[in-house]
């Protein structure tokens, strides 16, 4: 099962690279992403029915948390591939792209998918390789247009994330070393399950050092402040579908790694150590997003900073801990993964039509592109945590967890930041969406882009009004994996 | 039932009959202080009858509201009259409204006249309405506080009950707070009845007019109705002053005591009229924007009355 899931995007990527015509590439892309989605869903179902799956010499494995990540990646991946057809089609039509680049784009896109799926279904070292792979694949995607600014963004992305990932590997090696000491053999286990089972015997100081390296390392990739500095550059300079993937899922993948390591660290060091660190980084992330969102002039950077904020909230949720905190954080991962791509899709359409990323130069989107404009407005409300959208529920759970765990000051601070971000963010979005269009832009980009947005809107809205029992059960299973007694 | 009806009619007739007399009396007293002869005591009746006989000239700008305003204001003043004890505390409609209701019925009268003033489209009308509403805003807080002061002293706002309660308290009712409230209410009376130094009922000088400016466009019968309404209101306010603060002598029903009550009431009203005449004769009209000072004094006195009452009760 896992093998097929991993194979599907790789195959699709290769096929895209060797296809001749634009139509052909698009069809392959769509079929491939549907296949990935279906396989992903199949994996999710089988994990939740039969429990943990381990295959291929223990390298590939999937438990509830893996399945959860796979679900997010394959869903957003599917939506993005649908959107890409519309977006890239428009670019080709207007000569901003050529067929060669298109081929490369789709190939890299699916390899990117592969790397992110891999993150979820492998052991602690494989995880590192997979995350490094995501960096390596996404860097070329960022410089797809080879503009001056995107080269700069890609360089910063590559360097800072590589540094981060190096730290993460160092932390991983230290963890492995701790495990080797416990197993007292030359061959230490590197799969999550065996590690977790002995995690309480690890050396606490060693694990503290390891966790700091892992947290800073993967935290760089996850966009936690103050390691987030590359993020607004990369996410704003990438083509919009890529931004959607970067913000929506890649950040979650890195967060996944941190959360996994937390379950290894906390048993020996005590949860207080990990919680304090995560709350601190989380608060810093949410806080640092505030001024940049308030003063932002570029709407894609605006969205990028909002991602920093949301990663902070996830970290805080995990930090608060407890069933409420962790399930809130998990739900937040899902909700953010659905909402942020929606916003990037909208932003992408605006960028294509208005040709500028400056907030001040865009107005009246609801008039010129009614659907996109409405989605931007609703998405803007959703992403800033207004009910009845999913993000509100998960943020509320995190806040409630903070109160029930007695972290009242942190909770109040988070709420304050969230409200300030709302004020800043929504004022920008409403300025763009409302009013009369400032140019003679008329009409939507393409039905594909609208379809992708509509699909995501469903997932944005539904969890805000009704959490299906299946999803809830799933999250509870993941919480079981992650809760540290 | 029949007694009630008789009281009802009696009260109405007394109010309508005596109100112009009070006007005449004050004019007469004022003239006395100004060492002039002044108009006859019953001149107000003559004026009213004269106006009644005349035709009306109505501005062509006006609407139905201009014609309705005198009616409404007159009716509301009369309705208030049924709640104010004059000769007897056995008021047939005492339950229907208390002191606060009386104040608000006066406000209804003022409201309708002010709208009518604006209806003419004349600058004078607007000016009068504006000033009238301004003054009423100044008066209201002081008025309510002095009502509060009286009410908490006796534990009721129903006018008849206030009178009986004050009587039953005897001379102890004349506490400092009672007197303070009286002074406050007296100042309010000046404003409410449009007298110097707040308004000059005798003037038609454009800069100083308040009430007269509002009714400038009225003539003939309509003017008569308004004038009578104003007189009734003045009479009622004086009656309030007399029977809330010094209710002694008032009868408690339609019986023999009523004769004594009439005499007592007449004396009280005359004394109050005298006080008013003295005040009017010794002060000049104040500038409109000095009025807040006057009303602040009244407000402060009323507030002190409240405070004294509360302190007196101990606890």
């Amino acid at each position: 099962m896992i093998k097929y899931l991993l194979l599907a995007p790789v195959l699709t990527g290769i096929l895209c690279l060797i296809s001749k015509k634009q139509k052909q590439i698009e069809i392959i892309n769509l079929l491939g992403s549907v296949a990935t989605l279906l396989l992903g869903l199949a994996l999710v179902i089988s994990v939740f029915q039969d429990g943990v799956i381990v295959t291929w010499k223990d390298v590939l494995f999937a438990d509830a948390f893996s399945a959860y990540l796979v679900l997010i990646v394959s869903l957003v991946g599917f939506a993005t591939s649908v959107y890409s057809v519309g977006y890239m089609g428009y670019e080709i039509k207007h000569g901003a792209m050529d067929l060669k680049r298109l081929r490369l784009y789709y190939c890299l896109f699916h390899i990117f998918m592969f790397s992110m799926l891999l993150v979820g279904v492998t052991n602690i070292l494989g995880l590192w390789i997979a995350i490094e792979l995501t960096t390596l694949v996404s860097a070329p995607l960022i410089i797809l247009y080879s503009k001056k600014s995107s080269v700069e963004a890609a360089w910063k992305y590559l360097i800072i994330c590589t540094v981060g990932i190096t730290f993460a590997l160092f932390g991983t090696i230290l963890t492995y070393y701790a495990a080797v000491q416990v197993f007292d053999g030359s061959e230490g286990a590197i799969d999550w399950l065996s590690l977790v089972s002995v995690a309480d015997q690890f050396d606490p100081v060693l694990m503290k050092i390891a966790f700091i390296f892992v947290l800073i390392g993967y935290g760089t990739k996850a966009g936690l402040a103050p390691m987030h500095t590359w993020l607004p550059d990369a996410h704003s300079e990438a083509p919009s579908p890529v931004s959607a993937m970067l913000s929506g899922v890649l950040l979650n993948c890195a967060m996944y790694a941190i959360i996994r390591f937390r379950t290894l660290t906390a048993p020996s060091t005590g949860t207080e150590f990990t919680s304090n660190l995560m709350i601190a980084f989380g608060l810093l992330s949410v806080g640092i997003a505030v001024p940049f969102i308030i003063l932002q002039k570029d709407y894609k950077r605006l969205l990028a900073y909002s991602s920093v904020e949301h990663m902070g909230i996830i970290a805080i949720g995990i930090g608060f801990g407890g069933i409420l905190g962790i399930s809130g954080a998990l739900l937040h991962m899902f909700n953010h993964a659905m909402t942020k791509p929606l916003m990037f899709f909208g932003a992408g359409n605006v960028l294509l039509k208005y040709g500028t990323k400056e907030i001040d130069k865009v107005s009246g989107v609801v008039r010129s592109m009614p659907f996109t404009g409405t989605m931007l407005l609703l998405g803007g409300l959703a992403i800033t945590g207004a009910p009845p959208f999913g993000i509100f529920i998960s943020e509320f759970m995190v806040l409630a967890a903070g109160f029930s765990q007695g972290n009242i000051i942190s909770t109040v601070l988070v709420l304050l930041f969230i409200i300030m971000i709302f004020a800043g963010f929504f004022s920008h979005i409403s300025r763009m969406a409302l009013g009369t269009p400032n140019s003679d832009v008329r009409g939507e980009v393409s039905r594909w882009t609208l379809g992708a947005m509509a699909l995501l809107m469903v997932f944005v809205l539904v969890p805000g009004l009704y959490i299906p029992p299946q999803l809830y059960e799933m999250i509870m299973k993941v919480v079981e994996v992650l809760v540290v007694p | 039932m029949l007694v009630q009806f008789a009281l009802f009619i009696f009260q109405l007739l007394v109010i309508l009959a005596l109100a112009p007399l009070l006007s005449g009396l004050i004019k007469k007293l004022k003239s006395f202080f100004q060492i002039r002869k002044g108009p006859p005591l019953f001149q107000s009746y003559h004026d009213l009858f004269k106006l009644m006989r005349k035709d009306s000239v109505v501005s062509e700008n006006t609407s139905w509201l201009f014609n309705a305003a005198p009616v409404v204001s007159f009716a509301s003043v009369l309705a208030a009259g049924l709640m104010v004890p004059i000769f007897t505390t056995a008021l047939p409609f005492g339950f229907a409204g208390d002191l606060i209701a009386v104040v608000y019925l006066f406000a209804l009268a003022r409201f309708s006249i002010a709208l009518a003033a604006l209806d003419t489209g004349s600058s004078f009308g607007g000016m009068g309405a504006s000033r009238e509403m301004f003054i009423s805003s100044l008066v209201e807080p002081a008025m309510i506080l002095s009502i509060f002061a009286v009410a908490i002293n006796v534990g009721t706002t129903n006018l008849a009950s206030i009178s009986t309660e004050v009587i039953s308290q005897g001379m102890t009712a004349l506490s400092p707070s009672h007197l303070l409230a009286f002074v406050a209410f007296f100042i309010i009376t000046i404003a409410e009845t449009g007298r110097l130094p707040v308004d000059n009922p005798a003037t038609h000088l454009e800069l100083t007019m308040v009430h007269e400016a509002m009714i400038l466009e009225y003539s003939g019968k309509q003017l008569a109705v308004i004038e009578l309404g104003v007189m009734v209101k003045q009479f009622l306010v004086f009656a309030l002053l007399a029977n809330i603060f010094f209710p002694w002598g008032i009868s408690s029903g339609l019986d023999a005591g009523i004769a004594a009550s009439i005499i007592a009431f007449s004396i009280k009203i005359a004394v109050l009229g005298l006080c008013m005449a003295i005040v009017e004769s010794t002060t000049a009209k104040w500038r409109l924007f000095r009025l807040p000072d006057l009303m602040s004094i009244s407000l402060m006195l009323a507030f002190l009355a409240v405070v004294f009452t509360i302190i007196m009760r101990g606890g």
Partner: protein
Amino acid sequence: MDLTYLFLGIVFTYLIGAVLSVVLHRNDRFVTYASFISSFIASVLGIIFSFSVMFGDTFVIDIPGSSILQFGVSIDKLSAFFIMVISITSLAVSIYSIGYMTEYFGKKDIGYLGFLFNMFILSMILVVSASNAVMFIIVWELMSVISYFLVIYEHEKPETRKAGLIYIIMTHVGTGFIILSFLIMASASGSFDFGSFQGIGGQLSPALKDMAFLFALLGFGTKAGIVPLHIWLPYAHPAAPSNVSALMSGVMIKTAIYMMVRVFFEFLGADVLWWGILLLVVACISSLLGVMYALMEHDIKRLLAYHSVENIGIILIGLSVSMIFMSAGQPELAAFGLIAGLYHLINHAMFKSLLFMGAGSIIFSTHTRDIESLGGLIKKMPWTAFFFLIGSISISALPPFNGFVSEWLTFHAQLLSTNLSNNLVTVLVLGSGAALALTSALAAACFVKAFGISFLALPRTEHAMNAKEVPKTMLAGMGILSFMCILLGILAFHVAGILDSVSAPIVGTGIASTITSGLTIGTVPSFAGSISTTWIALLLILFMPLPIILLRSGITSKYETWGCGQPFSTARNEYTATAFSKPIRKWLGNIYRPHREIHATYANSHFFKTSFKFESHIEEVFEQYLYEPFIELTLAVSRSFRVIQTGSIHAYLAYIFAVLVILLISIITGGI
């Protein structure tokens, strides 16, 4: 069981209205009928439903849900009362809207408004029926968001966008406080169910209890529009279409009062004295400043919006006095205060919606909101004028209309404070009577101005000259609420009894039998005082023929108004709204801080003016001295943070390095 169907019927009728609006949105006429008739039917059902609950038992629907997100409906008498207020208002507004929306035909998407309109009313109903905190916050924000979208209906205008933004930000801030308050309570009760919140005040530490109170006050106060959180009202209400402003001002802001009653009385127990005192002070300031700013407005809808601030203040005076009595352990008196507050609440819902519809009618036929350019409308639009006049009399608290009854009750609630043992509190509460008196006098002044300048005398501009009476549906909507204003006035004795059944479960005692007898309402036995608006109305009607008979005979001739020495008088000689409020502006100059600018141009000599321009502004004190400095500070701090993102990769790496080294060193030192 029947009630369940009825309740679901209400919900689904609104939903059907919403869906039909979207489906039919291409045909303006169809969609107007479809959506507003749906909301009309739903409102009728709502009225039936609310009455059945009000005279029956608490109605509960529990929807089994998983996790934190649970939905459930629990409607007791308080909720039913609010559903009644919402339904009556929306019934009238729905009828009104059928005519009013013709204004937008061909210009805007009616379906969009119809959808939001139905959803808006539905969300308000759900707000007052929610049985759990999470659901409450969701429907509460839903209500805010929907009303935001209604406010920005005419988003082409920049001021509308500004209004929308201010509104949504303020309301979001408010929701933040509400969340905090609920979280405090939930952390003690261990559940988000409102049932578990009952009496939670007893389990909280005093500090947390005070926090819960303060956060709830700030949160709901923002929505209710108490000073200084009121700044969104004068922006949002004028920006929205008038039928929407009628609902927003008439009902939406009341939902905050609903929750204040729930939180302050039922959840926290209202047993802390200073809560009531604080609320009383806030309420007095709100009512005074609200009416003072209203007086200075000549935008009719802004004027009405400021009056909402004022009236919320008056409602809260009743509520706060009731809280003071609760803390003193005097439930009968508390019941009286609460009844006064609730009475004013329903009254305000009626006359404010009526007045907003009246304002909408003015805008409908004159296309201007500036009363300075109106005048003489009473002849062009007699019915609108009549209804607006009824609203004006009601809001000015003149007998025998409804506003008078509730203010009378409030005055008496204040008088009842003599039963308190704490002298200082008694003096304070009695002193607040002066504030209420000033408020009501200024309100009367303001409505003499509002009605007089816009409806009376001669038209000042073309706008007013060409006005026509509005369609019958609009008149019908206004007529219904006018009728309600009168009804609530003259049937006070009956209404007070109904309100007592609402307040009795909250304060613990019913006082209906003591305060109502026959056609009168009175105060509780420790204090005497009674009115009968029914009799006052009868007396007024009885006396009216008297002068009419006198006036009947004789000739009345028409002639022009005396032009003060000018050869003829025109509309240009009329008193303006600005001039009307001048004495008050001057009197309260310290609060208004008026600026005046006079620009005159002269020809040849100083004596010959060619043009003359007079401008007078008042300062928006709260915006200028409270919000703007805060916003400036936030921006300045934000700017100083920009340094972080220098663009230099070396700096970025240095941050990571610094964090790493600091954390490693703190491991060595045992810091973490």
